[in-house]
């Protein structure tokens, strides 16, 4: 005892303290960090500087132009290509999430050969030899099945198939069979036209989800925004005709809910009224159309469709008088047993109203030639089942998942002795194959897409192939197989050479005297070659044998199978961003849900989130109920895209596959799979399940978060007939005022006492209901400006930088660089343009390294998104419809409630008007979030960036996508929208380098850049010429919760509503 050292407790603790500190330091002292230089530096790449590559998005057949931002050789962000005719700078949510296909942690790493029930890795050489050998043995009994391909990829696939004696079949689940069949029938033309929404003055969509999956959604969203912005005479109405109010239809002024399967009759009824009353611009051959629709009188149609006859007459008159107008059919909701009939009926309607060749244009038609119909695919399966195919090569399509079981895909594949999947991920079809060849992602390989007439879009690798995946591009893989099989002796070295050779023909047409290499490099730089195209006018050739049909199977309810805005046909399901992006109708995430009318649910004894069992003759599924007033009482809806049994960790085992419910039925005329037309039995399900709701409350409870203004009020009151034209006219003029002086003059000159549509000052003269409103919903009366009114401090900052007063009663802040501040960064969000597509949300996830938290945390409100789209349902019932989408992010308040409660000054106001959040200063009290009226702050409850944690959100190689300009936040830290400060600094840096001021529009936030409808404008409010200034101080402006006097830097522009009930413009 005496020999040993005895410690006093205090001393012991000291030593232990040192020991622990030492140990901690010893352990924490990282291995000396290394700086690895290039061995040989690339001549044109500089570390720390982003490089951009134009390419083509391959996430769906639309083929929009994209620009890839790369840093240090890694693609980190996908954006729209402003020079590309498809997309014009926008990119949808699915397109943005293409990066997660590239960095998919479940991507196939090496060629895999089936080994019993498992897989065995083999080399490419072995795999190629195996395939080539089998193709040789098959002696022509082989099949190459691909998704939709165009341009050189298609021609080379065809060449390969011919050389090895295979047949090349292309198939898409969302094919355009019905549209093509209808156009063949009525116009004698096998084409899918270009819809010129921007030129239309009234749009009726017959179930077409043209803002989600149908056609070219990005280009259509831009056209739609242009159409809705038009208000010279109050035109721009949008009417949705479908049994369920879809996300696209949420933007509509009126929802007409016909009996499912009778939409075609409604279209014919409208055509009947137009012909009979001789309305609008008569298309040629109107007499023929009139004869074809003679039987479809409003009364007869009303009986068939359950839509009142006066509604039919009213809509017909509105549609015809608003010429050129546009009726749209297409998409999954159109594709039923009556699909071709509906598309043909819509053709008749368009023709009767004189829209053919005007808004329905056959110039920039989508290239869908050679796409097999579903019926043809089933015949291929029958052939395979009959043993006619010895070798099957599948690429870019997933028929085992995307066709109903009765199509026989699985059985057919089981009968094929040797099946090869050329795939990036192990989807259901790849699982059913004997060999998987790992494909390079589109962002790693050369290709092209000639997806519309006159659009020759190039696809180039934005980066070197990811090293952890031993992949090859589709073209190169086919080439290697062909060469091994002893064919293609005249093929060049690589697919890149094939591509260049094919582009020689384009060089001949568009080279304009440049040599080929120059032409090639410039085409790569621009993203392709685009020519203006025209078309000979299309003539109406014949009508279509319309006939009512019985719905299939027993059951009191109609089944509506909908396309998913997030997952398309299911191919997006393994992208975590898309799983976490709420569906914009139900606002649910990470799973399936059954949309059912509350009254119908009540009869079943089903409450929100309760399991519902749906049964048809084909099968049954169970999913949680989502009670939705926007669906007919006799209809239930289920979205496609989920229910994968394979395909990766994010997709597998989530939700149900709606295809399991589809009974054996096709649209005979088109050979299309009938997604619609089945009856279904619904009952309360047995197993408890979770409905992951991101936004459960869709009522804004009168809070005026999302505001509207009737178009009549903007037109100076003339259209509404309440003599306020003069006042509104002046107000509009004020909106254009370029400076504070003008504004002040207007403000004090009187005459604006009652109808000045400004949003200052807060909280005064706000009426709940405008007396002139002829329809329900809330409309905030334009605020009056009282005597002696002065703009608030924030506005002064914007107008007159010398009066930089943040708090009007205090001295200007002279600390720091406040005196040098030149800008006031701000945003204007046009609710009239926003369609709730979710593109901005995904763009923000990508740009700002936002972790995906998964369903359980989402439900607990621990979503990390910096921008969300709130959906508010004012009126969801057949008739005048009012659903509002509000993109909501940090409002960068001039007097921010969050700033004043932060005990450590982690959130503060920066000199340029940004509400800043300093992560390294934040101690995680969450006071700021509690005090934020907009609820836009996200707290890191867990460690999302530490690989050892279960909440880790960036498993290798998803972490390769992280933006190096943005800090990856750790646990215990608050975060929120920064208005992409990294982009602001980058833009200011460019301006400094060139010794000039920042140009308006030069800096764009990620959300503003991606928005297909250009609803978001970012810029410098202090620049009176800037777009954001003009919008923020123009008409329709308001601030959310302006009564709180937070002085937000985000100004919203009211959604413009149009009255369809009074018959539209005179």
């Amino acid at each position, binding site marked *: 005892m005496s020999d040993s050292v005895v410690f006093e407790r205090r001393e012991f603790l000291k030593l*232990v303290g040192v020991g622990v500190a030492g140990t901690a330091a010893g352990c924490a002292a990282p291995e000396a960090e*290394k700086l690895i230089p290039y061995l040989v530096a690339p001549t044109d790449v500089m570390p720390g500087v982003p490089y951009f590559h134009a390419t083509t998005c391959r996430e769906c057949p639309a083929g929009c132009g994209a620009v890839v931002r790369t840093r240090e050789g890694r693609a980190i962000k996908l954006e729209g290509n402003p020079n590309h005719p498809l997309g014009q700078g926008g990119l949808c949510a699915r397109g943005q999430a293409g990066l997660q296909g590239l960095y998919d942690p479940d991507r196939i790493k090496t060629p895999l050969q089936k080994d019993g029930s498992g897989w065995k890795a083999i080399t490419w050489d072995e795999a190629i030899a195996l395939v080539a050998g089998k193709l040789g043995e098959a002696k022509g009994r082989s099949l190459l099945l691909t998704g939709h391909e165009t341009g050189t990829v298609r021609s080379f696939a065809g060449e390969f198939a011919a050389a090895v004696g295979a047949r090349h079949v292309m198939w898409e689940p969302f094919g355009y069979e019905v549209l093509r069949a209808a156009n063949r029938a009525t116009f004698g033309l096998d084409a899918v036209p270009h819809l010129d929404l921007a030129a239309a003055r009234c749009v009726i969509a017959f179930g077409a989800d043209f803002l989600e999956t149908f056609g070219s959604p990005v280009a259509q969203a831009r056209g739609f925004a242009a159409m809705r912005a038009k208000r010279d005479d109050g035109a721009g109405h949008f009417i949705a005709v479908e049994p369920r109010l879809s996300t696209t239809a949420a933007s509509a002024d009126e929802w007409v809910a016909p009996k499912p399967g009778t939409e075609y009759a409604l279209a014919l009824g409208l055509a009947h009224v137009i012909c009979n009353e001789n309305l609008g611009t008569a298309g040629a051959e109107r007499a023929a159309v009139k004869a074809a629709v003679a039987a479809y009188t409003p009364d007869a149609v009303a009986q068939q469709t359950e839509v009142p006859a006066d509604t039919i007459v009213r809509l017909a008159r509105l549609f015809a008088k608003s010429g050129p107008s546009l009726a749209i059919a297409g998409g999954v909701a159109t594709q039923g047993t009556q699909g071709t009939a509906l598309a043909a009926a819509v053709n008749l309607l368009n023709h009767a109203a004189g829209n053919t060749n005007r808004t329905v244009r056959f110039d920039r038609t989508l290239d869908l030639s050679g796409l097999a119909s579903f019926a043809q695919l089933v015949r291929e399966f029958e052939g395979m089942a009959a043993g006619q195919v010895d070798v099957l090569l599948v690429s870019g399509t997933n028929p085992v998942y995307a066709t109903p079981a009765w199509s026989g895909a699985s059985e057919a594949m089981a009968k094929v002795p040797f099946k090869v999947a050329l795939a990036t991920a192990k989807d259901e079809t790849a699982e059913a194959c004997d060999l998987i060849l790992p494909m390079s992602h589109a962002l790693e390989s050369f290709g092209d897409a000639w997806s519309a007439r006159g659009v020759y879009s190039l696809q180039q690798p934005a980066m070197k192939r990811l090293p952890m995946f031993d992949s090859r591009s589709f073209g190169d893989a086919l080439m290697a197989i062909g060469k091994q099989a002893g064919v293609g002796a005249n093929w060049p070295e690589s697919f890149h050479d094939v591509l260049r050779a094919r582009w020689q023909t384009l060089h001949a047409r568009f080279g304009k005297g440049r040599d080929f290499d120059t032409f090639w490099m410039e085409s790569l730089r621009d993203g392709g070659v685009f020519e203006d195209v025209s078309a000979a006018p299309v003539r109406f050739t014949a009508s279509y044998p319309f006939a009512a049909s019985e719905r299939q199977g027993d059951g009191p309810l109609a089944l509506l199978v909908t396309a998913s805005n997030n997952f398309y046909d299911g191919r997006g399901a393994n992208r975590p961003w898309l799983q976490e992006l709420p569906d914009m109708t139900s606002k649910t995430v990470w799973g399936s849900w059954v949309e059912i009318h509350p009254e119908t649910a009540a009869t079943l004894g089903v409450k929100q989130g309760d399991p519902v069992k749906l049964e048809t003759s084909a099968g049954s599924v169970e999913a949680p109920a989502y009670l939705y007033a926007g669906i007919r009482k006799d209809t239930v809806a289920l979205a496609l895209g989920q229910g994968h049994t394979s395909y990766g960790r994010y997709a597998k085992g989530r939700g149900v596959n709606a295809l399991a419910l589809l009974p054996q039925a096709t649209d005979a005329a088109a050979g299309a799979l009938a997604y619609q037309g089945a009856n279904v039995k619904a009952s309360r399900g047995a197993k408890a399940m979770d409905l992951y709701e991101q936004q459960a409350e869709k009522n804004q409870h009168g809070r005026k978060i999302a505001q509207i203004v009737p178009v009549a009020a903007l037109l100076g009151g003339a259209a509404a007939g309440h003599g306020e034209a003069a006042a509104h006219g002046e107000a509009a003029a004020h909106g254009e005022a370029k400076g504070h002086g003008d504004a002040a003059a207007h403000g004090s000159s009187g005459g604006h006492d009652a109808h000045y549509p400004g949003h200052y000052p807060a909280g005064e003269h706000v009426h709940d209901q405008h007396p002139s409103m002829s329809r329900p919903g809330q409309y905030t009366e334009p605020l009056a400006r009282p005597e002696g009114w002065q703009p608030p401090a924030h506005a002064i900052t914007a107008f007159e930088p010398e009066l930089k007063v943040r708090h009007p009663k205090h001295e200007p802040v002279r600390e720091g660089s406040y005196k040098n501040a030149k800008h006031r960064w701000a945003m204007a969000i046009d609710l009239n343009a926003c369609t709730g597509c979710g593109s901005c949300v995904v763009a923000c996830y990508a740009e700002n390294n936002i972790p995906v938290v998964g369903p359980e945390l989402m439900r607990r409100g621990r979503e990390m998104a910096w921008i969300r789209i709130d959906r508010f349902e004012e009126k969801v019932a057949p008739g005048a419809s009012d659903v509002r989408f509000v993109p909501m992010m940090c409002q960068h308040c001039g007097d921010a409630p969050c700033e004043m409660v932060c005990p450590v000054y982690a959130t503060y106001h920066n000199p340029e008007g940004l509400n800043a959040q300093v992560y*390294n200063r934040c101690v995680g009290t969450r006071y700021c979030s509690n005090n934020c009226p907009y609820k836009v702050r996200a707290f890191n409850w867990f460690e999302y960036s530490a690989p050892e944690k279960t909440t880790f959100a960036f498993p290798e190689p998803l972490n390769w996508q992280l933006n190096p300009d943005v800090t990856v936040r750790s646990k215990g830290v608050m975060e929120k929208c920064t208005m992409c400060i990294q982009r602001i600094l980058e833009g200011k840096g460019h301006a400094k380098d060139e010794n000039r001021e920042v140009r308006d529009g030069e800096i764009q936030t990620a959300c503003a850049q991606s928005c297909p409808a250009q609803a978001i404008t970012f810029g410098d409010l202090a620049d009176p010429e800037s777009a954001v200034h003009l919008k923020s101080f123009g008409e329709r402006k308001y601030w959310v919760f302006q009564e709180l006097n937070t002085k937000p830097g985000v100004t919203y522009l009211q959604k413009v509503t149009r009255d369809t009930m009074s018959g539209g413009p005179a």
Partner: protein
Amino acid sequence: MTKIIAPALIVCALVTASVALSQSFGVKLGATKGPQQPIEFSHRIHAGVNQMDCLYCHSSAANSPWANIPAVSQCMGCHTVVATDKPEIVKLTDYWTRGEQVPWVKVHKVPDHVKFNHKRHVRAGIECQTCHGPVETMDRVYQYSSLKMGWCVTCHRQNLDNPTHPASMDCLVCHH
């Protein structure tokens, strides 16, 4: 129980503490400052004796937020003919012939939540030595400045009214 554990803990504490101390002081103190590099590259010879411009090798410092370490090929641009027999150059040549990058040890490091922009500072006319110290006298480069925020802010505060390149005191400039 305490008595048995305590001596063991002392040993453990002393060992780990000394390791930690030597590691942390290795950068600042000791006979030769700075960490040992895989090749004893001397900035004194290059930037001092031979008067080479810093940007000759670290060219992106003036054009990118990030300063670069020259590619091995750039070293070899001279050293295929210059001083090829020196042992350190032989090491370099070996890396080159093996096609291997030189794993230089990082000396200057700021945390992830700091976004330092080299280009802005170089273009504002700030000498490299202002932050990196007299590199042209260093055989082995060591961290001259603390690189702590107070150190950054001191300079920024002094340059708030700089007529041509006013510095910013805004947190967001570095923290985002």
